[in-house]
């Protein structure tokens, strides 16, 4: 594990990342590319806001009726011949997978990319049993060999350059490979082809599960997920309990939103709907298929009005690509399986241990780029504030900040105290003001003034000069035109009729 993951706080890990010039450039380059890809793909599709709203509605509806749809899915999958399992915790899911592997006397498991598997630390569990576990997505394979964890939901090795990758792969090859993408990818193709054909078990995640038919759907570009679901005799699918959508018809909406949001593609090169194990007379496909349906903290969001929408997430990574903080610090700085804005909210929410994820929710400027990018409109920027509030409510706030905010409340309750505070500032700043600005880096000014200059307070605040200003205005006020008056009256009427939603948006 890298130094980044060992550092204890987001702040410390971010500092390491900020000093890693390559990392910052690599992450910036790729996220910018993905971000502009998304922009093009969504405008090519057109009516993007309608699609987003539809995607959100489908997810909201499914989660609101999750017991019905999940039950339907489980029954249908079983009718298709799938062994369905339910796991309350990650440990339970790992246990089930291990039991299957043991029964099958599996020596090798080939895997396609799955964030749930990362969440459960499945690989290390299987490897402790002596089972060779091979990630087959190109990026995942690389970071597995490097002994690292993914730093992006979609591009796991976003933080590595091709020279680093060539070194990692050369060790496996037993010869120095040229740091050329085609050469490196070609080596992996050849190497993993043998593994696909020989592995005992194929293990996948699940992008969507179709309730009405019991099918599981995978999106991918490389073909490795198809290999994993076609060649080994046994297939195990790890599925978060919220992956459900009602029908294939609904899949069209997800297929419109997911690839465009993730990589700016119209659709991924492969989209596979697997409905049960191979049919009796088929000559490929798994003979036995298991789906492990996993809770692991997901159900804690149900019935929580502030966080239930987290379960709508389709794991596209668009919020990572849009996030200016992620761009500067990369995924490992977040310290959890999921990074970026979704990770900052999901990690503490799944674990219900806000206090332990000390500053992760603070690593955001609340700019809302994540919400704007989200294909199912999850208000992540608001959830971050709710997390911060819960931390304070549970008494895990920072002491100095507690006192400071209490003081804030007391001052802001009264204009008198507020004005007194401003006056105090006007007088007190004299110690540090030079030529109308403050450049001192002492005490609380350090963070701000390390890269900035603070303006000084002018002699008079607005409220101190308003009276004079108002007198002048009153003397020379123009008459309001009838046009302006009628427009204002119309606006007043609109305001009265308007039923703003909670936390609603603009006047359009």
């Amino acid at each position: 594990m890298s130094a980044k993951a060992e550092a204890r706080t987001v702040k410390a890990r971010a500092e390491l990342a900020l000093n890693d010039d390559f990392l910052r450039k690599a992450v910036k380059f790729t996220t910018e590319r993905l971000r502009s890809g998304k922009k093009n793909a969504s405008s090519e599709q057109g009516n993007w806001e309608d699609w987003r709203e539809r995607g959100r509605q489908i997810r909201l509806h499914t989660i609101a009726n999750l017991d019905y749809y999940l039950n339907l899915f489980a029954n249908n999958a079983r009718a298709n011949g799938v062994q369905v399992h339910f796991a309350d915790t990650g440990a339970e899911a790992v246990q089930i997978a291990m039991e299957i592997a043991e029964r099958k006397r599996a020596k090798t498991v080939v895997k396609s990319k799955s964030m749930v598997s990362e969440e459960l630390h499945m690989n290390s569990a299987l490897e402790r049993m002596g089972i060779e576990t091979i990630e087959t997505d190109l990026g995942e394979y690389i970071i597995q060999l490097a002994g690292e964890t993914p730093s992006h939901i979609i591009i796991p090795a976003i933080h590595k350059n091709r020279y680093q990758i060539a070194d990692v792969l050369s060790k496996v090859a037993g010869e120095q490979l040229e740091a050329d993408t085609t050469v490196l990818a070609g080596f992996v193709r050849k190497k993993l082809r043998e593994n696909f054909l020989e592995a005992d078990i194929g293990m996948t995640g699940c992008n969507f599960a179709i309730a009405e038919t019991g099918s599981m759907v995978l999106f991918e570009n490389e073909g490795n997920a198809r290999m994993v679901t076609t060649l080994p005799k046994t297939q195990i699918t790890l599925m978060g309990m919220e992956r459900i959508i009602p029908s294939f018809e609904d899949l069209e909406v997800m297929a419109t939103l997911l690839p465009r949001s993730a990589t700016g593609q119209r659709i991924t090169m492969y989209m596979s709907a697997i409905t049960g194990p191979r049919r009796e007379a088929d000559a490929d496909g798994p003979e036995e298929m298991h789906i492990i349906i996993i809770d692991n903290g997901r159900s804690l969001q149900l019935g929580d009005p502030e966080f239930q929408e987290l379960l709508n997430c389709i794991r596209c990574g668009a919020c990572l690509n849009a996030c200016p903080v992620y761009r500067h610090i990369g995924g490992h700085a977040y310290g959890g399986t999921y990074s970026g804005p979704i990770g900052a909210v999901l990690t503490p929410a799944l674990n219900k241990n806000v206090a332990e994820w000390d500053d992760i929710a603070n690593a955001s400027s609340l700019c809302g780029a994540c919400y704007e990018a989200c294909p199912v409109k999850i208000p992540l920027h608001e959830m971050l504030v709710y997390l911060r509030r819960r931390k304070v409510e549970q008494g895990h706030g920072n002491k100095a900040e507690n006192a400071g905010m209490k003081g804030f409340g007391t001052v802001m309750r009264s204009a008198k105290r507020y004005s007194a505070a401003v006056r105090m500032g006007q007088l007190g700043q004299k110690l540090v003001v030079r030529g109308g600005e403050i450049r001192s880096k002492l005490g609380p000014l350090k963070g701000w003034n390390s890269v900035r200059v603070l303006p000084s307070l002018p002699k008079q605040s607005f409220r101190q000069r308003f009276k004079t200003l108002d007198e002048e205005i009153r003397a020379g006020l123009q008459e309001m035109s009838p046009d302006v008056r009628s427009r204002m009256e119309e606006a007043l009427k609109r305001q009265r009729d308007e039923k703003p939603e909670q936390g609603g948006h603009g006047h359009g």
Partner: protein
Amino acid sequence: MKVSLFITCLSDAIYPRVGEAMVRLLARHGIRLEFPEIQTCCGQPAFNSGYWDAARESAATILRAFDDSDFVISPSGSCTGMIHHYPKLFEHDSVLLEKARKLQAKSYEFTQFLVNVLGVADIGATFPHKVTYHPSCHGSRLLGVKDEPMTLLDNVKELELVPLPFAEDCCGFGGTFAVKMADISAAMVSEKADHVKETEAEVLVGLDMACLMNIGGNLRYRNEPVRVMHLAELLAEGAGLL
């Protein structure tokens, strides 16, 4: 009709010229901006940090201050955006919740009011400079104020508007974020200032003094001669009102 100015604490204490610009600009359309003196801060610093009790104390003051106003106009999309959070903040207090909803419905960011309510697209200003515009996140994303400032800028004579690269990226202010996560914030503001520099603009204009204080502070630190101003100031200056 009572049109009230919600000055915001930053413009009150540090940038009073922005308030003056708004007062003078609206007076031209026959509106005498009223200023309830009991107003303080919208409460955002406490709200965003998770201290909602403190935020409520501040917010309750704002609710009182503008109780009998017909329109509440502020020079900040972020502080107006905070008012949009009031219903959530008071969701368990039926009396204040009702007041919060009313305030939300009548609150406007300055250009929203000017363009969408008053129907003013051309203020009749002349500003012979190269200008770039930073759309602040809360105003543009959460309130949807995107076209209004463009309309106003397009109608300023002799003004050369240069597009800001990656304009929609956050400047890294984020209130207490700039202090708590100073390193990340510094990286973000430096990137933003780089983009401003790339445009070779003489003036950086925006709708939120917090972001402008942040970007301007960095430009000043680097001794970049870019003037930073609120759009209200630019329009008032261009119209000879300031």
